């Protein structure tokens, strides 16, 4: 199974129906992507596949063999969203944060508050109450 993750080519001997989430965490060693519900409801496992946000817990790895997969590790520590989430305290326990940030990446530059709320509607947070997250995404958009 050939897989491109964060620009790096992987050749993996994995079952074609292994979840992308499990392949990323177990076979690629990229544990930044978290499992929240395993049912596509919480968005914690959000990654980008060909720039589109998807729930990695619902995707057989075979279906992304020709795609560009991007995870939170691929952003790097100095990405504007990473810095903004720190500065605005947009994370408390942090479980939702990687998925939240990847979903925010998919919003593109300078999203409006309405677009942020809609775009992140599939990413649940039990800690922050979302306001700090929205501030972080808006702050990153202004950076």
């Amino acid at each position, binding site marked *: 199974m050939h897989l491109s993750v964060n620009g790096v080519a992987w050749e993996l001997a994995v079952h*074609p129906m292994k979840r992308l989430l499990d392949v990323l965490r177990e076979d690629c060693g990229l544990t930044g992507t978290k499992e929240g519900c395993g049912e596509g409801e919480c968005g914690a496992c959000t990654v980008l596949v060909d720039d589109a946000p998807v729930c990695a817990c619902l995707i057989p790895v075979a279906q992304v063999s020709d795609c560009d997969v991007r995870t939170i590790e691929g952003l790097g520590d100095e990405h504007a969203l990473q810095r903004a989430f720190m500065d605005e305290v947009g994370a408390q326990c942090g479980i939702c944060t990687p998925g939240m940030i990847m979903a925010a990446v998919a919003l593109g530059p300078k999203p409006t508050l309405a677009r942020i709320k809609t775009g992140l509607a599939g990413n649940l947070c039990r800690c922050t109450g979302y306001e700090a997250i929205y501030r972080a995404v808006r702050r990153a958009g202004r950076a």
Partner: protein
Amino acid sequence: MRGAVATLTLLRPRTLREALDVLRDDPELVPLAGATDLYVSLNFGTLEGTRFLDLWPLRALRRITEKGDVLSLSLIHI
């Protein structure tokens, strides 16, 4: 994850014609596009099939067409 995928089989036809031929010859195959219901059922232990036919790569099934008052959505639309 709670369910094991090792017991599952995924066939990946390269064309729609190939998919139809395989499905004709093996009616036990379950067509699969997005896998939401599959993995939810696997987690709950209610998954009934074990052999799946992956329709996701088939471009012929990815279209939305409008003819008069009728809007047709393909099996897989992005």
